[in-house]
């Protein structure tokens, strides 16, 4: 039985903070796989001391599957490093105003095609912020990307600025999802979102709508979230299985306050039975209506600004500093590669609010 040990990349959280006996429940979350299991505190102590005999075989098998238990002789850091080095797909946010200069547009295209030619990347999942470039420029951009191939494209619309006719862009891409950005919560803005969502379903009833929520400036979060979803759901009679939520943040806003607000928002989203990824990768990049979340599928969602034509995941990972190398979150966030790309030097929010996220998931049985 000594062939296994508890992984070093674990987050544990008590389901009920007030209970503190061997039978109280503990959530064990592996940042290697993004999977979690619930065991009793007593069982966890047995695992930690490598006393596996009293634990049922089926439970141990599940712990192995979630990589909560790992081979005794495994160098975990090296294993993570080896796996990250083999990632051949990235997500890319194109947040540029392509309408200002033809050179810029050409640069974006040539950088993407260059990446596919010169690196081991096999696929780039692009999220195009329409409002930065407008319909005409975007359609040209999409056509050029389609010529390159190996790119999947999703579009982020801002209903406060877009026309329903902009939705025709969807015809140029193979997608099952449309993202809409939610920035304001006043009555007229919510009415605009409402109208735009109606137009989306009128165009194609099988599409999913992903809410792209900026969490930087949440004030009065509970009231805002409730207002948004109750209005949208009541007036449209929407099927909530067609909706999902993705939390994003920009700039240097990773604070305790934002992380706490995000949890409040997530709780409300759960109350409305809308799909969201409670435990997600660094960018909360969620595939709507798709498979279970897999970090390695959608890792390294980066901003075009910091993308260069010699981009290489291996180089970035190897640059990871010692602080990150000792961090339990390394398998989830990838260390400095993420920070540098985003030009941020703080840890992702999930590191701050993971315990609350896990409790939420336990409470709602979701994810």
């Amino acid at each position, binding site marked *: *039985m000594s*062939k*296994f040990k508890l992984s070093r990349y674990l987050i544990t959280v008590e389901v009920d903070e007030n209970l503190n006996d061997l039978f109280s429940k503990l959530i064990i979350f592996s940042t290697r796989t993004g999977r979690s299991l619930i065991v009793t505190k007593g069982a966890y102590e047995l695992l930690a001391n490598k006393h596996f005999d009293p634990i049922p*075989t089926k439970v141990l098998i599940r712990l192995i*599957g979630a990589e909560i238990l790992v*081979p005794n002789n495994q160098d975990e850091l090296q294993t993570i490093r080896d796996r990250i*080095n*083999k990632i*051949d797909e990235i997500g890319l946010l194109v947040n540029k105003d392509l309408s200002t200069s033809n050179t810029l547009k050409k640069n974006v295209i040539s950088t993407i095609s260059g990446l596919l030619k010169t690196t081991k990347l096999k696929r780039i999942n692009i999220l195009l912020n329409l409002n930065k470039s407008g319909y005409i420029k975007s359609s040209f951009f999409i056509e050029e990307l389609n010529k390159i191939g190996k790119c999947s494209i999703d579009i982020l619309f801002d209903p406060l600025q877009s026309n329903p006719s902009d939705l025709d862009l969807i015809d140029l891409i193979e997608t099952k999802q449309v993202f809409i950005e939610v920035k304001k919560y006043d009555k007229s803005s919510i009415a605009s979102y409402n109208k735009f969502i109606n137009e989306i379903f009128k165009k194609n009833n*099988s599409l999913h709508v992903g809410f792209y929520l900026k969490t930087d400036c949440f004030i009065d979060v509970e009231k805002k979230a409730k207002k948004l979803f109750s209005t949208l759901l009541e007036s449209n009679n929407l099927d909530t299985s067609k909706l999902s939520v993705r939390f994003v943040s920009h700039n240097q806003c990773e604070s305790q306050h934002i992380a706490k607000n995000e949890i409040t928002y997530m709780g409300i989203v759960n109350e409305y039975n809308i799909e969201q990824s409670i435990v997600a990768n660094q960018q909360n990049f969620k595939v709507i209506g798709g498979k279970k979340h897999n970090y390695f599928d959608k890792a390294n969602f980066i901003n075009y600004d910091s993308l260069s034509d010699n981009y290489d995941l291996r180089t970035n990972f190897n640059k990871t500093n010692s602080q990150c190398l000792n961090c339990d979150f390394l398998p989830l966030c990838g260390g400095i590669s993420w920070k540098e790309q985003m030009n941020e030097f703080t840890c992702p929010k999930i590191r701050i609010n993971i315990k609350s996220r896990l409790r939420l998931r336990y409470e709602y049985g979701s994810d």
Partner: protein
Amino acid sequence: MSTVVINSDFTTGIENFLNTFNSDSSKKAETVEETNSFDDLLYGSMITRLKKESILNFYQAFDILQKGLLCARNNHLLLSNQYYSEADRWKEEIRDQEVNLLVESFEYPAKSYLYYKLMDYSTAESMLKKAIEIDDCLEDKGYDIMHFHKIQQLHNISRISYAKKEVREWENIMLQLLKYLTLGESPVNYGNWNVERINKCPSESRSGMLFQVFSEVLVFNLYLVSNNKQDINYSIRNVCSGIELKPKTRDEKAIREWLDLNSLLKDEKEFFLRNALIFLSSQPNKFNLFKAYLLIDILKILKGLNRELFSKIETVVSVIIKNRTQINSDILGRIIKNSCYSQT
């Protein structure tokens, strides 16, 4: 050709079906709880034969192989190979020969899939044959359920034949598989076959495999049609002829009904329409592909159908086929059009 009378019950019935059609074949409500899954049965065999530590050693390897397989399915071939290297390292730790055999039984098919993705079909095929040999050994040791694992490998070999564009060989293996599963006639190639092994396992195992093989015939057949290789009913006729199925499960009953419906197509069109409607309305979403074929047959029979209903049926057929294949819209439109105007 005799005139087919469309009564209003049929029109109302088909409209109801089309209006309530749901393309999602993964709806939870319709999922039958699998109490006798392959994994459960394998675990059941292991627990009676192996020590706890050996079982854990197996699952450590099995889990990494499964992760590698999943990566290969999603075209992350480098990462897939990385997982297989991890599995190789772990295998060196395993001293128990039986556990090693069990691991290899899953290792060869997993690695074979990676070679398949890399289009090295000959290595992929030889690995599957190796897996079949190992399954033979494991069956002899008492792992009856591995018989289905072996059938799965023969199925995988058929996929390689298809990828190599050896369509008749693919058809031949599919026919052998179906005849083995329904009539007990042993396949001629690779491995030891004994239908008693099938009978020792729960009916759900056979049923699941039959469903899988049938569904794949329907999918690959569409690809052949889309490449102008053959008429839509060609493979179906070839593969399904001579199949005698005595259903034991709900899924097998549905497959049987579907086969019976196909035999009605030639001379008993009105009876076909009535019963096809019952199949469409009563079978769960997992049979959507079977339904698409019936809908194409309905279109074929009812050429004088009103335009609106015709296009509604066309849309549902397209949605189903698009969900299961990578056939693009233009080709799909051509398939439906050509199929509707070909000889019934």
